[in-house]
Each structure stands twice: as structure tokens, then as C-alpha cells.
């Protein structure tokens, strides 16, 4: 029995997924290395984030909660780098805390590298408080008694011996909290941190949709959404960082996905018409 040949539309609908993977891979690599720079339109949440940090005075103390691991590195690393760059520009002091075991090392090494380039002194202008296994407990503890909750930094120095937090008794003594995270840690910070300390948020793109309610209510003062937000932030800072480099590939990947969705629907439509014609 002769096998019925497939139409071009049927072949399109049944395309081997490996071809799709290849197309996306080539697209990403091409636009990662292509020297195209498209300026972003600054979104209101990013502008608010920037304005909030601009209000800081030299010496103000900021808590950065860094809870991301390598899996979301492409989005959270550009955010954290841009935020630390801005804090250093404002000569603010900052401390980092992680509730993700891997993030303890990633954020510490990242901050060490970025601060070394600008001559920021560990212990004097910044410090890393290491890994805490339970964020709710840690925040409640820091609100009551920060030195006794954290006890020592990643280098084993007692917190009350660190010049960067000299005189700090509680989280209320901080000027700002910045949550860089791919997880649902934001509601915890909102619920348990002191109400006088503003919160800024750096989620991955997939988490950002949930945070617009908190932005509306003023419970967070600004938001950098994924690598796209990082690119906007780098643009505000006037630097070319990872966000700017990643966004080309992301932009054209979005276009490719849209094109292929349209293509898939077109093939489905044409296939239906053909089947109808053939009875």
C-alpha cells in the first residue's frame, strides 16, 4: 500500500524539536556576540528604584538580601552588580545576607570582585553576613537584636566588631532593604521588616508579575525586573554591564518565539483548509 505523502503544512506541524532548539541556539549566540545596542525605554518601577537609591546619603547603611543561585544567574547577577555599583557611587555602606546556601558564595565572591575594582573596603564599607537557613526567623531576630542574631560575618569576625555596622542594634537602623531573589521572599520581608525601612525588589522576570500589587500599595518602592530591568538600570547609571549584553539575545528570542507561534498557527490553519478541501 502506498503511503500518503505529507503536505508541507503537516511537515511543519510535525517538525523535529531539535531543529527548533538549533534555531533558538543560533539566534541567542548571534545576538549575544552581535555589536547591536538598542536603548531601552526606562520603565516606571526601575526609575523609582533608581530615584530611591539616589536619595541615599554617603555612609547610609543598606541591607542586600541575595537569595539566588546559579540557575538564575543570567537575571540576578546583572541586577546585583548594577545595584552594588550604584550604592558605591553613592558611597553607601552595605551588608549582604543569603538564605540560599549557594548564594552565600556567589554573592560574596561577586561583591568581593566588584568592590575590589572600586577600592571599597571589606568590614569598613561592606560586609557579608553569610547564610541563614530561615528568613522569617532571621528577620525577626535582626529586628530585635541584629548583632546577636547574625553573630559573625563570613570571615568569622563578630558582627559588633565590624566597623561597617558599628552602633547598629537592629534592622531599623538601616536606611533600605534590597531583595535580589528568584523566590517568594518579598512577602516575608514586607511582613517582618521594620515599617520605617523602605524595600526595593529585584526579582526574576517570571516573579515580577506578582510584585506589581506591592508596588501599587507602596510596600516596595521600586523594582528591577530581570535582565531587562538590569539593562534599564545600567542605562540610567551610564554603564554597559551584563544586562545590556544579555538583552539583545533576549529581545530577539522574544521576536523568534512570536514568529514561531504565528508560524505554528498559520500551518495549523492551512492544514485544516487543505484537509477540508480534500474532504
Amino acid at each position, binding site marked *: 500500500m502506498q503511503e500518503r505523502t505529507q503536505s508541507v503544512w503537516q511537515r511543519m*506541524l510535525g*517538525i523535529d*524539536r531539535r531543529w*527548533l*532548539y538549533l534555531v*533558538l*541556539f543560533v539566534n*541567542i549566540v548571534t545576538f549575544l556576540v552581535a555589536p547591536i545596542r*538598542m*536603548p*531601552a*525605554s526606562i*520603565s516606571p518601577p526601575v526609575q523609582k528604584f533608581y530615584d530611591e537609591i539616589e536619595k541615599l546619603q554617603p555612609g547610609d547603611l543598606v541591607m542586600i538580601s541575595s537569595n539566588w*543561585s*546559579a*540557575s*538564575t*544567574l*543570567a537575571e540576578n547577577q546583572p541586577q546585583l552588580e548594577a545595584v552594588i555599583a550604584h550604592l558605591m557611587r553613592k558611597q553607601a555602606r552595605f551588608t549582604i545576607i543569603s538564605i540560599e*546556601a*549557594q548564594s552565600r*558564595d*556567589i554573592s560574596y565572591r561577586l561583591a568581593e570582585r566588584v568592590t575590589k575594582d572600586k577600592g571599597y573596603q571589606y568590614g569598613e564599607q561592606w560586609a557579608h553576613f553569610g547564610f*541563614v*537557613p*530561615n528568613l522569617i*526567623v*532571621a528577620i*525577626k*531576630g535582626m529586628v*530585635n*537584636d541584629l548583632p*546577636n*542574631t547574625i553573630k559573625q560575618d*563570613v*570571615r*568569622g569576625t563578630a558582627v559588633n566588631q565590624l566597623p561597617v555596622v558599628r552602633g547598629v542594634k537592629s534592622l531599623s537602623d538601616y536606611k533600605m532593604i534590597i531583595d535580589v531573589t528568584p523566590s517568594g521572599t518579598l512577602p516575608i520581608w514586607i511582613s517582618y521588616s521594620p515599617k520605617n525601612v523602605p524595600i526595593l525588589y529585584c526579582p526574576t522576570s517570571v516573579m515580577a*508579575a*506578582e510584585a*506589581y*500589587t506591592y*508596588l*501599587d500599595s507602596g510596600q516596595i518602592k521600586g523594582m528591577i525586573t530581570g535582565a*531587562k530591568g538590569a*539593562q534599564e538600570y545600567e542605562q540610567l547609571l551610564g554603564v554597559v554591564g551584563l544586562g545590556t549584553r544579555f*538583552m*539583545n539575545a533576549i*529581545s*530577539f*528570542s*522574544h*521576536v*523568534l*518565539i*512570536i514568529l*514561531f*507561534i504565528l508560524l*505554528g*498557527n498559520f500551518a*495549523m490553519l492551512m492544514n485544516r483548509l487543505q484537509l477540508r478541501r480534500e474532504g
Partner: protein
Amino acid sequence: MGVLNHLIAQQSVWQLPEGSRVLFATLIVLGAFVLFLGLIPVLQTLPPRGRRAIVVIITFLAGLFFAAEFFLPINWTAIFPKDDPTRNFLTPAIQPAQNVLQIIGALALGLGTFGLVRLHLRNVVQKRAQWGYSIVLLVSFITMATFSILNTLAEKEIVERGPVLERGFSILFDYTLVQLDAAMFSLIAFYIFSAAYRAFRIRSIEASILMFTAMLVMIGVVPLGAYLSYTLLGLPEGAAPEGANFLTQVQHNIGLPKIANWVLTQLNAPAQRAIEFGVGIGGLAMAIRLWLSLERGVT
């Protein structure tokens, strides 16, 4: 007796004189171990109903403590004028309770690690199916743990950071673990692309609206959207000037980034808020059930 009085007065072992500190800390740790190790056989001898009663009582008291500390008025001085106005009478107990929770959290990590190693050791010893992967896991685990512990000790300047440690940790962490983890997660983009092509079909009005909105947001949030709107089409960027006519206002608001932002803030945010209210109420109900040990599985 003098040391005990001092301990009670200072409320901390670490504020004792140097000589007594180590002794007392050791005694406390050993005492805690003996107490808990002694409790396990006692609990084992209890009938299931008795064990359940103990778990229920401890769960209820722990929940009650945290809830009471949170909800009792902060300004306790209205009732006890001499007390600290920034905290109620339960607040000083929060810190030790939180230390206990941190220790339980750390113990859970240790327990998980122990379970993982035991399972894979058993796989290797009994040569179960695919036991070769278990060897890979155990070797990776031991190597990574060794270098990580040494690296942490070097950060605290307890051991010297030699070139072997520096290079070894960097190869294992920066150039292996981080890259593998990032690569694993990035595979999702390929699955999404394939799934979008195969499954995102316009079969109904709702699906069409969803697809059209998704496309607008996907293009609007990336720089390409701004390029298409403001550079290619020449639409005006930023807010329309005050008193501008209708056409100017429309022109200022139909850029793709503006539309994407409108969808996110005016359509997405209210829907998310409704979902979060639902989740919050559900979470509260679940918390009460857990607190009162009404959930199944409390034994």
C-alpha cells in the same frame, strides 16, 4: 554557685569569665545531647496516641508563643509601667527561640545530607541498578564538601589559603557547579520555545486574546519594542503635555512599552491581587489546621 548567679545575671554563657565559659558551654551541649538522646527511647516506648499527644501539645505551644508575641501590644507599659516600651514580655524570649529554630533548620540540612549519602552508599554496596551514578554522586559530594569546608575555614583565616585550595575551589565552584546549574536552568528556554510553537494555538476567542496580549507584552518590555515605537514609527516618548488634545494623548500612549506597562499594572496587578488574597486566606486556614494538628500525618 557564684558562677551560676553570674550566668543568671548575664543571661549568656558567652559573658562568663574565660575559664568557666568553655566548661559551661561543653556541659550545656553535652547535657542537651544526653537529654535528647535519652528522650528518643522514652518516646519510642510510648503508644502512638501518646506520641501524637506530645507532638500536638508542642506544636500548639510553639504556635501560641509566636502568635502571642506578634499580636500582643508592643507598648506593654500601659499594664507594666516599668517595662521596656518597645517590646512585650514575650519579646526577650524570641531570640533564644529563634536560635533553636536556626539549629533545627541546620539539623534538617544535616539530616537530608545523611539520608542522601546513606541511600547512595547502599546503592553502591548492594550494586543496585545504575549504581555507577551513585559513585559519581558520592565522589562529587566528598570532593565539593572538602573544598567548600576548607574554603570557609580559609575565609575565617583558620587554615591557610594555598594555591591548591584557591584553584581547586574555583574550578569546582565557579567553573563547574555554577556553570552546570546555569546550563540546566537555561534548558527551560528551549522547552518553552518548542512548547510555544507546538501548543500555543488560536482555538478560541479567549486563546486569541491571551496570545495577542502576550505578544504585546513580550515585545513591549524589551528594547526592540521601544525601538519599533519611538525610533521606527516616531511616536513621542514620555507623558503627554498637560492640556494636550486627544490625538496627542493617544500618540503618547500607544507606544509598545506604554501598552506593556499598562497591561502589567492595570490588568495583571488587580488579577494578581485577587489571587494573592485567595492564597492568603487559604494559607491562614492551612496554618490554623497545622497549628491545631488537624492535618493528616501528625503522628
